[in-house]
C-alpha cells in the first residue's frame, strides 16, 4: 500500500507542483467560484451575500454598453483571428522558402509578441495620434491636407485596434505554423509536384490539412488573447471614443472599480467565462472520442 503510494507520487514532484496546485486552486477555482457566486447577489462597492437570482444578468443584457462590448469583441475576434491566421500562414510560407537571414526575419516578426500589449497599444496610439503621429509627420513634410486619425472616430477606432492586434499576433502565429510546415515530409511536396498539383493547391488541399495541430494551437492562443483583450484597448483608446471600442473585459473592470457595481461586473465576468467553458468542453469531447477511436483501432 505504502509502496504504491510512493510509487505514484514522487515526493520531489509533489513538492515541486504544490505552489502551482495552490495557485490553480486559489486563483482559478476559488476565484472563479466567488465570481459566479457574487454574480447572483446585489453586491455594490463591497461583496455581500444578498442573493437576487438572475437580476444582475437581466440588467447586464439590458445595458447598451455591454451589448456594444459583446458586438465589439465578436468583430475584433473574428477579424483579428482570421487575419492573423492568414498573415501568419503566408509569413510562414515565406520563411519556409529557405531565405537568407531567416533568423533576423523571424526575430523581426516575433518582436511585437515579446512586447507587452500596453507598449503595443501606446506605440500604435502615438503613431495614430493626430497631433503626434503619422498625420502630423506628413503634414510637416508639406502634405498639409493629409488627414489620418482613425482613433478619434467611433467608426474607425475598432479597425485600428484590429490592425494593432494583427501586428502583435501574426508573428507568433507564424512561428507556430512555421514549425508545422517544417514538420511536413519533403517527399509530400515532391510527390505533389510529380502529380502535377499546383503549389497553391498543395497548400490548401494537402499541407494545411496536415497541419491541423499547429492551426489548433495557434487558434487557441489567439482565442485566449481575444477573450481577455484589455490592456490593448486601455492603452490605445480607453474604450472610446465614447463606448465605441469597449470590450467585455474593459466593461467588467470599469463596473467593479469605477462604477462600484460588483454584482453586475461579476455577472459580466461569468458571461465571459461561458464561451471558454464551451470551447473547453468541446475540445475535451473531441479528445475523448479520439482516444476511444484509437483504442478501438488497436
Amino acid at each position, binding site marked *: 500500500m505504502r509502496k504504491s503510494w510512493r510509487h505514484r507520487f514522487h515526493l520531489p514532484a509533489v513538492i515541486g507542483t504544490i505552489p502551482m496546485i495552490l495557485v490553480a486552486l486559489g486563483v482559478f477555482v476559488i476565484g472563479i467560484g466567488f465570481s459566479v457566486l457574487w454574480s447572483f447577489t446585489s453586491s455594490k462597492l463591497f461583496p455581500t451575500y444578498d442573493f437576487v437570482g438572475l437580476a444582475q444578468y437581466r440588467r447586464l443584457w439590458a445595458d447598451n454598453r455591454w451589448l456594444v462590448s459583446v458586438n465589439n469583441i465578436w468583430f475584433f475576434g473574428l477579424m483579428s483571428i482570421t487575419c492573423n491566421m492568414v498573415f501568419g500562414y503566408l509569413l510562414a510560407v515565406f520563411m519556409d522558402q529557405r531565405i537568407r537571414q531567416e533568423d533576423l526575419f523571424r526575430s523581426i516578426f516575433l518582436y511585437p509578441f515579446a512586447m507587452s500589449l500596453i507598449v503595443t497599444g501606446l506605440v500604435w496610439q502615438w503613431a495614430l495620434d493626430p497631433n503626434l503621429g503619422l498625420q502630423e509627420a506628413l503634414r510637416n513634410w508639406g502634405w498639409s491636407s493629409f488627414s489620418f486619425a482613425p482613433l478619434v472616430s467611433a467608426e474607425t477606432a475598432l479597425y485600428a485596434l484590429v490592425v494593432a492586434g494583427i501586428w502583435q499576433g501574426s508573428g507568433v502565429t507564424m512561428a507556430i505554423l512555421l514549425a508545422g510546415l517544417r514538420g511536413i*515530409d519533403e*517527399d*509530400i511536396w*515532391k*510527390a*505533389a*509536384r*510529380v*502529380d*502535377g*498539383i*499546383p503549389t497553391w*493547391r498543395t497548400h490548401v*488541399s*494537402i499541407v494545411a*490539412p*496536415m497541419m491541423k495541430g499547429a492551426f489548433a494551437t495557434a487558434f487557441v492562443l489567439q482565442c485566449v488573447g481575444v477573450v481577455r483583450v484589455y490592456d490593448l484597448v486601455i492603452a490605445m483608446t480607453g474604450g472610446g471614443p465614447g463606448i465605441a471600442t469597449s470590450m467585455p473585459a474593459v466593461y467588467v473592470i470599469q463596473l467593479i472599480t469605477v462604477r462600484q457595481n460588483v454584482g453586475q461586473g461579476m455577472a459580466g465576468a461569468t458571461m465571459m467565462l461561458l464561451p471558454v467553458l464551451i470551447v473547453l468542453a468541446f475540445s475535451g469531447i473531441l479528445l475523448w472520442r479520439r482516444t476511444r477511436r484509437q483504442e478501438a*483501432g488497436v
Partner: protein
Amino acid sequence: MAQNGTSVSIQDLSLSFGVVTVLQTLNLDVAEGEFIVLLGPSGCGKSTLLNCIAGLLDVSEGSIFIKGKNVTWEEPKDRGIGMVFQSYALYPQMTVEKNLSFGLRVAGTPKDEIAKRIARAAEILQIEPLLQRKPAALSGGQRQRVAIGRALVRDVDVFLFDEPLSNLDAKLRAELRVEIKLLHRKLQNTMIYVTHDQIEAMTLADRIAVMKGGVIQQLDAPQTIYNRPVNRFVAGFLGSPAMNFIEGQAETGASAAFKTGTVSIPLDRYAFDAAGNSSGPCVFGIRPEHVALGEAANAMPFAIDAAVEIVEPMGSDTLVWTKLGGQNFSFRVEAEKTLRNGEPIRIGFDPARASLFDSQSGNRM
C-alpha cells in the same frame, strides 16, 4: 539526340550546390523497358540523380532526354514519369482512392477515365479492398503499394523508385521486392530504382549502376559487376560477406604470379584487362564463396595450407577466418562442416575467378 529504343538518356549531367559537386559530367542511357538500379553508399549522389531525372532538382549542366524529348527544363508532371518515395508520401487526410485520383482530378481528366485507371491499378496491385481507407489505417507494405499505384494511374513511361523498401522490415522487404519484379514483368515499363541494398540491386536489376562520389563507377549486368568489378570500390561494395583483399606484388613474364610474403599465386589463368598494366604493387581479391576446402582445394589450380582462426556460423552457411600471407582471409563452407579453432586445413581457389586491382588507382588490372 537519343538513340532509338532509348527511354531515358542523360548526357554530361553535372550538379553542384555552391562549391560542392554532387554529380560530375554523368552519362547514362537506359533502354526501353529496362530495369536500372542506381546503387551506392549514402551520399554518393544516387538519389540526387533520380531527383534530377524526375525534375525535382535543377541541373547545373547537361541535359536529360526522356523518350527522345529534351526534358531538362520541363516540370516533373510533363516528363512522363511517376515516382515512388521511401516515406510513401501519401496524402494522409485522403482515402486511398483520393490519393490515386487527386493528381488526375487536378489535371481535369474525365471522371470515367479516372475510375477506369484506378480500377486497373487497384487490380494490378491488389488494393481493391483498401480503396476507402486512409493511409493511417494501412500497413507499411500496403502504403507502399498505394504509392506505386499513384505512379501507375498516371500512365507514365518511366517509373522512378527512391529507396522504396528501406522503411519496411526485412520480411516485407523481400515480399515487395518480388512484387516489384513481377510488376515490372507485367508492365514492361522502364524503371529506375535507387537503393543502397545490394540484394535489391542484384535481384531486381537488368543493369546496375554502382555510384560513388557523383560518378558512375560501373554500369553492367549484376553478374558482371559481381564477377568482374572494375575497381576495388565496386568489388568491396558488392557481396556479403565482403571480398578478401590481399596486398602484394604482381610479377609479369613467363610465370606471371601474385606474390605476398612467401605465398605465390600463379596468374597464368587470370585474364588481365587489356587496358590496365599487369605488374607492380596490387591488391588480390577473391570472394569467400569461391574458396574450396580440403579435398576440393587440392583440385584447384592454387592450394595452400592454413589454420582456422575464427568460425562464424551464419545459419545457412559458415564463415571461416584464416590467414593468407599473414593477412586476414575468409571463406564460406557449408553449415554442416564442423571446424575447430587452430585446426590445420587446406584451402584452394581458381585465380581465374579472382580480381586484381592496382594499389594506386584501385582499377582492375
